[in-house]
């Protein structure tokens, strides 16, 4: 039962992280190149423009949800399972989500990179 709880919490972390990352990426593409924007209109404008983007706010909320899921997962499972499992699954899920929702060109090069990184993180954090 404890294992089921732990894996449910890990899936919740992955889901919330992916939603957060995808929304943040989408929000920042809507905001535009921050460096260019800052040169043109000033830092204050960049901050206001970013903070007033609804997708940005939803992204932050999702990331907060991911953080609290992590706390729950850590209270049920070992950190040596939770941290690498959540991190490496997030890498793969992010690549899939970026292709589907952000229409990023996830070519073979990026699939290989995401898989290598996910495997590496699992080994390193495990």
């Amino acid at each position, binding site marked *: 039962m404890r294992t089921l709880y732990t894996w449910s919490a890990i899936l919740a972390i992955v889901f919330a992280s992916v939603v957060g990352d995808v929304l943040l990426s989408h929000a920042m593409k809507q905001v535009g190149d921050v460096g260019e924007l800052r040169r043109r209109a000033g830092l204050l404008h960049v901050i206001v423009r*970013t903070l007033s983007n609804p997708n940005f706010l939803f992204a932050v909320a999702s990331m907060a949800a991911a953080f609290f899921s992590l706390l729950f997962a850590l209270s049920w499972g070992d950190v040596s399972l939770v941290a690498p499992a959540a991190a490496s699954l997030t890498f793969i899920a992010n690549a899939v989500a970026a292709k589907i929702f952000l229409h990023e060109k996830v070519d073979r090069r*990026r699939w290989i990179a*995401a898989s290598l990184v996910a495997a*590496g993180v699992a080994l390193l954090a495990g």
Partner: protein
Amino acid sequence: MNFRKYLVLAGVTVFAVAGDSMLSHGMKQVGTISIHHLQSVFSAVTNPWVALGILFLLGFFATYTTALSWADLTYVMPATALGYVLLALVARFVLHEYISPLRWLGIVLITSGVGFVAGGPALTEHPLGEAGKIAEGSRAEKSPPFDSAQGKLLAKDARNGAPQVGITGKV
């Protein structure tokens, strides 16, 4: 991708590692926080390491957000993973901890993954919609800001300017 942008990506990695390490160090000084005394988590902020850690993690979020404004999520993600490598190297060479062969293999895998993705284009170009801010080494980088009235013109310009990099849409 110019030098400034690589610097931002390096910032993502360094801020994350520094922030996490300081937070971890600070929380060990603060001690265990009981589930019945959750309010003591607020007093943890007064620990200088925790406060500094939070400051660095804010720096991480700022650089991460900046990077996502001109690069794909699947491009920035591996850069954040370099933090694990940096953390392991700090553990080995600064803290003189033992790193098992399996962990060295992990370092090699992450580093080669990052090398793979860094060799490709940073941003998928969408000819329509967000076409005004095509970043990858094209003339659009120095072009006037995106304007919806000019959008079509800029999109055409960007397509002509950098046809060689990852265009998903049909021209």
